[in-house]
């Protein structure tokens, strides 16, 4: 496959088209505005829909309306924009429609900053909007992986009739890397006639379809929530993705890190190896469902003395890592959140520090 050098944000836009998504609505926000700029040119070329909405609130519902009539749709935004879309994400989850949301995270809370961050972990994996719902959340660590995840996200959203979120950080959006685009996937969501409001005329059944999330009868609403829970449980069985790095050796510490941060961790691991120190890494590629079992098993290696959650957030993933390790080993956190990515040297220093605290060095 031929590789081209592309900026992450533009590659994300191109990946959507290659995945058969010809419907894109968005509102500009740094550091992801290039997706909209790119698709404002590309969508007309491929006969697709590009529309810049008046706000992220509206864009969320443009996505909802389009998704509800069976179209393959995507939006991209960054942290404050995702907050505004959270209302729609809750409704889309409640109404069980497929849609892809890309969050190229920047620092927060509030206006925060425009540099890379991973501070929306909890928002993405634990809610954001109201009610009992979950998103399938995928976290790319390179432009290539962002492309692949965007292309996987559409069939996954359609399989579960649930929003899928690609949680990248500003670096993934802004950096240029060589990227190869996999072959085109399906171009049409399947079985939409069973549920989508695509017009009765288009369906053999002659039955009308209804897309809604209101259930005034408590028993019915409870059952709907049980149905949604079963879906999230199925994701936990079938969709967990992660990468192991340097875990076939007797490592003294286990790192858990995702996205851009995990690449820094890998460099730190390689550097420490040359100094004779072995460190393992589990990199979640899906943040929901979270690779709990993989982390728990990796933490149980007898040589492993401490588990470190290394993030560009103030310990948001730490809670999931602790939950995964289940008290078997001490779990600690290191991270930064202003938009500066911790350097390999800083990570190496932290690893040494924690190894000292938990035994030898």
């Amino acid at each position, binding site marked *: 496959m031929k590789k081209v050098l592309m900026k992450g944000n533009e590659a994300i836009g191109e990946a959507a088209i290659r995945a058969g998504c010809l*419907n894109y*609505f968005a509102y500009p926000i740094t550091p992801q505005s290039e997706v909209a700029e790119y698709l404002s040119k590309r969508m007309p070329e491929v006969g697709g*829909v590009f*529309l810049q*909405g*008046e*706000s992220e*609130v*509206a*864009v*969320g*519902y*443009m*996505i*909802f*309306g*389009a*998704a*509800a*009539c069976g*179209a393959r*749709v995507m939006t991209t935004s960054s942290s404050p924009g995702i907050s505004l879309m959270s*209302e*729609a994400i809750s*409704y889309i989850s409640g*109404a069980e429609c497929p849609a892809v949301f890309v969050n190229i995270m920047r620092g927060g809370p509030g206006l925060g900053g425009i540099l890379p961050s991973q501070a929306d972990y909890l928002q993405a994996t634990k809610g954001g909007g109201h009610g009992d719902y979950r998103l399938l959340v995928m976290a790319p660590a390179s432009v290539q992986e962002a492309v692949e995840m965007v292309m996987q996200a559409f069939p996954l959203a359609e399989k579960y009739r649930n929003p899928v979120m690609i949680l990248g950080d500003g670096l993934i959006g802004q950096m240029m890397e060589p990227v190869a685009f996999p072959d085109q996937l399906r171009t049409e969501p399947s079985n939409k006639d069973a549920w989508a*409001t*695509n*017009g*009765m*005329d288009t369906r053999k059944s002659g039955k*009308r*379809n*209804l*897309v*809604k*999330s*209101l259930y005034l009868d408590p028993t019915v609403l409870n059952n709907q929530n049980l149905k949604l829970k079963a879906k999230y449980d199925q994701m936990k069985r079938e969709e967990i993705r992660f990468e192991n790095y340097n875990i076939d050796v007797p490592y003294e510490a286990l790192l858990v890190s995702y996205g851009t941060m995990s690449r820094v961790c890998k460099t730190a691991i390689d550097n420490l190896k040359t100094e004779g120190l072995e460190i393992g890494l589990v990199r979640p590629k899906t943040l929901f469902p979270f690779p709990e079992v993989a982390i728990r098993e990796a933490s149980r290696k007898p040589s492993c003395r401490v588990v470190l959650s290394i993030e560009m957030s103030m310990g948001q993933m730490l809670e999931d890592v602790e939950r995964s390790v289940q008290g078997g080993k001490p779990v600690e956190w290191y991270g930064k959140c202003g938009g500066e990515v911790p350097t390999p040297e800083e990570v190496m220093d932290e690893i040494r520090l924690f190894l000292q605290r938990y035994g030898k060095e």
Partner: protein
Amino acid sequence: MGKTFQKPEALSDMPTHYCPGCTHGVIHRLIAEVIDEMNIRGKMVGIAPVGCAVLAYNYFTFDFQEAAHGRAPAMATGIKRVRPDLMVFTYQGDGDLASIGMGEIVHAANRGEKFTTIFVNNAVYGMTGGQMAPTTMPNQRTTTSPMGRNVAEVGMPIKVAELLASLQTPAYITRQTVIKPKYIVKAKKAIRKAFEYQLAGKCYSFVEVVSTCPTNWGLTPLEAVNWAENTMLPYYELGDKKVPD
């Protein structure tokens, strides 16, 4: 002999939950009649609001989506952009459209989205128990303006039809009412015109319907009709506010 009067096919058999004297039901029927007459039921998608008409989808027999409070115009935009062949209308109350959803309606209209809005103006939040709306009349008592709407504090009621008609983008914007039989024929004609403009892909179309809420106005159905006619109609003047060339 054939039947001279029957339920439109676009209307379901389900009895509505609307209060006695409420005109939501009349407006539903007019929409259904027009859809039948234009033979467009099979490509229709309705969008229900948050408000008393939240269950509107139960009373029609074609595809329906349910929106969040005020967001119906954005949903309709999403549908029409990806499926211009579908017919789409939003059905929205005044709290829904003129308050929380003001941004969505103004921008959808200004973009010239090719869908239709049926805007039911009853000068109050009906569903949540009669709170003040942006359309509440001066001095009108509501549960959140117990002394009457004080325009010095909260401004004058918003005339949405006129507001949207001020936009430069071509559109069909009209205000009608269904409070008395003499107005109903005109209201139906306006709804039909709105759908025809949409079908022709011509412009955004908006029909404001001055309506009643006897329950929250604390009036009998007859008193409510008279209050609407005497208090609302002089302020919310009926008629076309904008027609496309």
